[in-house]
């Protein structure tokens, strides 16, 4: 049997204890063991950004971190984003701008965009595009996503 470890972590405000194979990555653990399927898997090699989520306040590739490394961490996935405030406003702006089509990149996009906005990023289209360049979207062409981020920064979007 594969080697396992016990881990305890906080996911979206809940304490979770589990025994996990040491080779299991974080996003597979969240999706398959906890049923938090909002974080997606697009490449499993750290390029597409579909698995982007928040670990202890830092945006992280869920496919590049092992579940055992998350022992003791506090994790927020798309399911745990609040309905109000910046996250709520960003969701409203995404809807208004149609900044998602299939929606597969969306949870990761939200995480990266929130990181940018939360750090006090300006409504500078080039800077936003640079910041989002680790998140692949095949559907939208990105412009509407940039629009949505600008809407939040400039106070046009409300939760």
């Amino acid at each position: 049997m594969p080697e396992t470890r016990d881990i305890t972590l906080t996911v979206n405000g809940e304490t979770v204890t589990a025994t996990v194979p040491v080779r299991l990555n974080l996003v597979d653990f969240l999706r398959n063991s906890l049923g938090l399927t909002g974080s997606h898997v697009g490449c499993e090699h750290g390029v597409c950004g579909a698995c982007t989520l928040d670990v202890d306040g830092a945006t992280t590739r869920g496919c590049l971190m092992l579940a055992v490394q998350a022992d003791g961490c506090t994790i927020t996935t798309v399911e745990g984003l609040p309905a109000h405030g910046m996250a709520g406003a960003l969701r409203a702006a995404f809807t208004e701008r149609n900044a998602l089509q299939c929606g597969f990149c969306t949870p990761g996009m939200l995480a990266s965009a929130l990181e940018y906005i939360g750090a006090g990023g300006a409504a500078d289209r080039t800077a936003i595009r640079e910041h989002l360049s680790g998140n692949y979207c095949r559907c939208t062409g990105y412009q509407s996503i940039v629009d949505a981020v600008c809407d939040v920064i400039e106070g046009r979007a409300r939760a």
Partner: protein
Amino acid sequence: MSGPKLSFDQPNRYIGQPVPRADAQRLLMGRGRFVDDMQAPRMVHAAFLRSPVAHGRIVSLDVAAARRMPGVVAVITGADLVGVVEPYVGVLSHLAGLRSAPQMPMAVGRVRWQGEPVAMVLAQSRAEAEDAVAEIHLDLEDLPAATDMERALDPDAPVIHPEFGSNLAWTRTVNVGDVDAALKGQDITIVEREFRFGRHTGVTLEARATLVEYDPAEDQLTVLYSGQAPHMMQFIFAKHFGMLEENVRVISQDVGGSFGIKIHTYGDEIAAAAAARMLGRPVKFVADRFESFMTDIHARDHAVRGRMAVGRAGHIVALDFDDVTGIGPYSMYPRTSAIEANQVLNLTGAPYVVPNYRATSKVVFQNKTLMCQYRAVGHPIAMAICDGLLEEAAAAIGMDPVEIRRRNLMRDDSYPRTSASGMKLDDLSHQKALEKLVEMMDYARLRENQARLRQQGIHRGIGFVSMVEVTNPSPMFYGIGGAPIASQDGATVRLDAGGGVHVSSSVTEQGQGTNAILQQIVAGVLGVDIARVKVTTGDTRTTPYGGGTWASRGAGIGGEAALLAAQALKEQVLDVAAVILQTQADKLDVADGSVVDAGGGAARMTLSDLARTVYYRGNELPSDMKPELVATRHYRVTDMPFVFTNGAMAAEVEVDVETGFVRVVNFWAVEDCGRVINPRLVDEQVRGGVVQGIGGALYEECLYSEDGQLLTTTMADYLVPMAAEMPDIHVAHIETPTKTSILGAKGAGEAGTGGAPAAVMNAVNDALRPLGASIFQMPMTPARVLAALGRAGH
């Protein structure tokens, strides 16, 4: 077409409005329902051993050790599926002469491309299945591989299917007028160029995925499928498993992008379904990214030698080209791999008056991944050939690229007519689109700016394309050739007791907003609040029978069926209301969820009251009244093989002559897709399509070694457009509704991908021209641009 007055010509709150999609919130909250989000009791995971070589003979295949690995439930080989799955052949009768060999889901005896499935492990987890795959012993004898499509027909090329005697799958020639005579004409200028279009693939962010359950008690197969055509897949599973079609249920919930990738018969998915039947337990297969690059269909891969002759005034005299395209070792089932070449012949030159036209395409087998239909099938090639040659011709005679288009585009008042290749064309607006484009981009100022920057050593270029897009296909596309692909679609619209309306439709949603426009149409036509309209799509058991969403047909065909069904339901409602209210139906209307006096009058009763009367208190109705509050209508295009749309696009690029990098600075698109149901969704379709087209023009390529090893198998090797490289894209519309339907909507999904590559290529050549360089190979990578400039790459 008769029928009630066009509801959307009267004030309505939805059709033509930028209504936000109702299903966006769910996806934004992480509550999507993609295939890999689903689990089933006793589910096992499939992983595949795939051929490591492009061509080989299976000497031995030993799975004994794999069977003993932890967590393994079963190991199944290609030979195990003989007799379980009926082989399939990707030919269609209307593509006369097309040939392909029978295919099995996993290789039997021989492997013919790297990545072809050879054996499948089913285990408790995907990781355990992959562990066991590593323990399968496959002994292969290497066979010589035919990989280069341009040498695949050489007499000494290895023949992939010996029974055919050569690697030729299909060839077609179109010959209209007298090209040879025209090329000998007086006062003409001839330009001749060689074009190369690399292999691309779709790179849907959600990889192909399936979860199949089988219930032997009822001989019931249920397939959760990430794809575009549930009814087509229902037929395929039933036919090749020897089942009744009604015993196969195919369900598509959320689909993480498709673009034509997820609409074909993939061996691994068929094998997974076969395993579910053999084991009597659910099987999940989700391709990883490596498998996606290696086994999702590839597209394009054309080499073209073309020439165009123009007269002194810039009129096209003749267009002539030879195309060769490699499709892998088989023609894909059931849509075939000859459609792209066929489209290239059909579409090249279609926006222009071309008196003499000759084109030949050869479709060849090779030992590479199968090639088939991907977003904008054939369009990028067709548009790049004609508009590439046209801009070269303009330069040769010293004419502006806009002016030469003005002289050659079909006149907006000249329809209906046919293209040189015989395509029926109607309701197009090339001239208007070009003029709107030129105005939107402020062309004169751009040229001044270009000249000024040139003096500073900055090399900008401006390129154009005028294009057509095939949308709303009729039965002439596939059905006529024997494909199990519906060309008509249906919608059922039902009024429930609470006053809510339910639509179920056979078109599917992959993110375009299909469900949203169905809501808009039904709410708009019926006269109810859009929040009261719920939509079901993507389930062969609960929706009407139809084709799904591909070839830009969802809005035009599915939307029309929904419109007709909503109109029929409205008539039913008014008939019942007339009896209850003791008046005549034509004195009533429906608005805001209530029956009202016609002409904007007072509300008489709510739809809920009416429905409750019918459903609960039928005793209040005359006994000879048999009310129905549900209507189904189907729609197909009858007068045309396809409904063409048109567009005009332009790119401004900057070429760094030191590094060879091309940056797209600006992009403009004017699109005429007929009636626009939701301008926001259409604009975003165009933008997403343009970006995919820019990817094809500048970055994306499936590269192979000479012996057929795919070299681009990660997202770090196969480059897709990311946010930082992409420009903002300016979109405008002209609305020339198609006369083939009441709704008047044509498709918009593929124009950007079809047109952008030609515009970008022309822009790059516009930038390079003063330097005496040119490039006609896509993607236009830095190394190729430097080579074109006569500089070696660093």
